[in-house]
């Protein structure tokens, strides 16, 4: 027994002390603004991007609201003090010249992606994925524009959308996440620099999965993407968001806002694999990820599905939510959140049922190892008007090691008699019986744990598109295999 424990300790040590594989930084020339945040900086950002006045107005309005707000403290997180005046709010690679083909992309940038194993080249084309690569703040290269254009699909950086489709952006920007929604959303609304804009016209189903890889590169740069996805009646889109970031000792702030709008009969599938630098094993460095993601099922019979695999970031504060406004609309939330070492995560979802016969499903799997803290926090709010609504939530937590914590904070409000809401949650460690069973069959301990964890997360991983599923599985293996205490 003793030797088994010793072995387990060894395996645990090996795995949890593994260094972040994707830690490197590339030296690309950056055009930067001075540190700090004030109305001047915001005007400068807006001017540098040639934005129309209404965008500047939106930014200033948000900034003024943000100044009056306080950092939220209700989450189960220990957030070190952030000096918002010590951050650079805008940086972009210096434009060299207009790019015609992939060969003309800065080889250093290409190298970054290659190191990460992200194929921004022919491989991706074969994989039928259009990539909107974001390096720091400005999109560098967008592929597949043409094919999408033929179908009337707009997929471009939000800065282009502001220029080319101002009516659309003006109508929907801030319509799901108002500028005054919360502290980080207000900050983002004031200084957002880039992100994706997706528009699917009526009746069009996107022929390919749209994907955007976000990267944080320049030291001390906060990245504030703004993503807006609009799907008109009967349309469909699957959007992938994936991220890895180079290793830095300095904490980096990331406060994105994502807004999804699904009209009648429309469907949006939004998948995220997040693998930003989580800090080293002593809890130094790592990215602060404070994200506001929200979708609205505006029309009847619409559907929004969130899937996330969260393995990175030092601190995660993220609640992809759905407002089920249309009758018979459906929302889903699938999440695997892994924390290790000193990582902290407070993540979950909100399901706001307004329309009749609306349905929502929440499947959340938390895995904590090392000295990390992993919390699920979710709200299911069934309003009086949402008759015959249905929610089913499952939140399971797996603990690996006796130094970590796993917490569940569900909030359930029901205001009518015809709805059914069910919530269940369990917390336990890896079953020793299962482990014993698998080891009996000749699997070594690491593979056995790997298998159990993969099985545990399968329900969520199955929801990911193919390309992501593979990546996510790899991430889980790196983060977890063998981590039993």
């Amino acid at each position, binding site marked *: 027994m003793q030797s088994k424990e010793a072995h387990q300790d060894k395996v645990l040590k090996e795995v949890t002390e593994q260094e972040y594989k994707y830690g490197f930084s590339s030296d690309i020339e950056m055009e930067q603004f001075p540190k700090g945040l004030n109305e001047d900086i915001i005007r400068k950002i807006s001017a540098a991007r040639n934005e129309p006045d209404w965008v500047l107005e939106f930014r200033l309005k948000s900034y003024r609201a943000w100044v009056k707000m306080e950092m939220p403290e*209700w989450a*189960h997180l220990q957030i070190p003090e952030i000096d918002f005046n010590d951050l650079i709010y805008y940086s972009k690679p210096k434009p060299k010249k207009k790019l015609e083909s992939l060969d003309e992309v800065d080889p250093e940038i290409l190298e970054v992606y290659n190191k990460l194993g992200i194929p921004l080249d022919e491989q991706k084309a074969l994989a039928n994925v259009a990539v909107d690569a974001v390096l720091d703040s400005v999109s560098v290269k967008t592929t597949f524009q043409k094919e999408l254009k033929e179908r009337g699909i707009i997929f471009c950086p939000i800065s282009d959308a502001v220029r080319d489709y101002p009516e659309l952006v003006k109508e929907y920007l801030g319509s799901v996440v108002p500028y005054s929604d919360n502290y980080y959303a207000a900050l983002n609304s004031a200084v957002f620099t880039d992100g994706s804009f997706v528009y699917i016209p009526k009746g069009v189903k996107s022929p390919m999965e749209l994907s955007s890889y976000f990267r944080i590169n320049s030291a001390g740069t906060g990245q504030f993407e703004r993503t807006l996805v609009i799907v008109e009646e009967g349309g469909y889109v699957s959007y992938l968001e994936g991220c890895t970031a180079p290793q830095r000792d300095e904490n980096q702030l990331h406060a994105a806002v994502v807004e999804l709008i699904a009209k009648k009969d429309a469907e949006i599938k939004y998948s995220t694999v997040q693998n930003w630098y989580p800090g080293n094993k002593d809890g130094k460095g790592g990215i602060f990820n404070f994200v506001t993601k929200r979708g609205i099922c505006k029309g009847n019979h619409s559907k929004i599905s969130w899937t996330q695999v969260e393995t990175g970031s030092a601190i995660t504060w993220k609640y992809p939510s759905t407002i089920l406004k249309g009758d018979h609309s459906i929302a889903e939330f699938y999440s695997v959140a892994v924390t290790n070492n000193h990582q902290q995560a407070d993540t979950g979802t909100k399901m706001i049922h307004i329309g009749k016969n609306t349905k929502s499903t929440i499947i959340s799997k938390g895995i904590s190892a090392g000295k990390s803290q992993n919390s699920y926090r979710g709200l299911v709010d069934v309003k*009086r008007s949402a*008759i015959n609504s249905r929610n089913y939530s499952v939140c399971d*937590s797996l*603990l*690996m*090691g*006796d*130094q*970590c*914590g*796993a*917490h*569940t*904070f*569900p*909030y*359930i*409000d*029901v*205001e*009518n*008699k*015809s*709805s*059914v*809401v*069910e*919530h*269940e*949650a*369990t*917390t*336990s*460690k890896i079953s020793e019986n299962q482990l014993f069973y698998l080891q009996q069959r000749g699997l070594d301990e690491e593979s056995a744990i790997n298998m159990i964890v993969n099985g545990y997360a399968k329900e969520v991983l199955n929801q990911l598109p193919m390309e992501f599923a593979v990546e996510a599985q790899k991430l889980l293996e790196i983060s977890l295999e063998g981590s039993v*205490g």
Partner: protein
Amino acid sequence: MKLQDNIIEYINENQALLNDSFPDFIKDIRTKAQQDFIKKGFPSQKNEKWRRTKLKNIADQYYHPGINMIFDKELKWESCVVPEYDRAVALVNGHYVAEKILEVLPNGIVIGSLQAATEKYPDLVKRYFNKLVAQQNKAFDDLNAAMFADGLFLYVPKNVQGFRLQITHRLDAKIDALINVRNLIILEENAQIDMVQCDDSNQHRSHFVTFNAEVFLADKAKLNWYKYQNINNLSAIFSNHYYEVGSQANLYTNFIELNGKTLRNEQFAQIIGVAAKVDLYGLYLADKLQQVDNVIFVSHDKEGSYSNQKFKGILDDSARGFFNGQILVKKDAQQTNAFQKNDNILLTDKARISSQPFLEIYADDVSCSHGSTTGQIDEDALFYIRQRGISKRDAQLLQLYAFTGEIIDAIKIPELIEPTKDLVKKRLNGKLDVCEDCILQCQTRT
């Protein structure tokens, strides 16, 4: 809020009356609580645990703040006698009422008024009093400590077992009044008692009540506490219960919340020993504009303990329910088994429930789960029963009654089961009025 202002004014003007009847160690706690209350006041809506409770509605009217500071010598209470009870005592408007104000029973049990106990057994009271409250300091703790006049004191010595106590907690003010009751219950090693408490009121007066109880269970001690709350629809009781649970000790509570404008029961159990067992049951049945809150916190500090929370509620008309249950498993509490379940039925579209089953776990070798459901009567089952020639209303009542079974079946005193079933049936039928007498006697009277 009107009441808050009245209390502050009263505290400032009546220092001597409030503080002079207590020994110094309590006086210190009281004056600090008075200052804190003046500073903090009532819990605000911003407090997550109070957001769902309409406190303002209740606190914005006039209650006489000092009624329970004046001891009415005319206060008498004849408790009804439920069979198999060793002793029946009463708390009337916050005062302990019995033949003797403080007595020592032949088996060594000390029972009586807390105020009298602070004089007679200052050392004993000092060792325990305010220990748990000071650690937590929840809403209304300050008010209670600042203003209470009296309450129950109970001391059960080592190895004394099999004692059954009936407590009638009676609200019977002649004018609308604020009443604060403070209780201290100490069980020494291997002691065991059953307590049955009924919260009753008169028909027509508003009472705003804070009821605080600190309960100490030494190793192997066992407490079974049953509480029936049936007060008029003008009155509110805010009860805070604190339990310290030692090794192999056994805490069991079963609270049946039947009537009242606002009933709030907060229970905080801290398991400081190993291999302890905590079972908390609750049933709340609310209609009209009633509000029922249950706020539960079980903290596992040491290894090998078991805890179980089971709360069920039925909400009719415009009633509101709030359940917040939390299990905390600390780092050293390996091999913990902790469970939590909250089930609700809403009968109308105006009724509301807010359920928050929380888990906070820092140890890995544990098995914890929670569940929460909200729904309505099963239509298929209703149809099935009606097919058998039973009217819709009766079929509904049958189902609701069956829903409550899980809590009633958990009652461990056989003599209590039938009266409880009867009460619940009557309540579901809308025929349970505020009792002028002990509600457990209702069965024999009708």
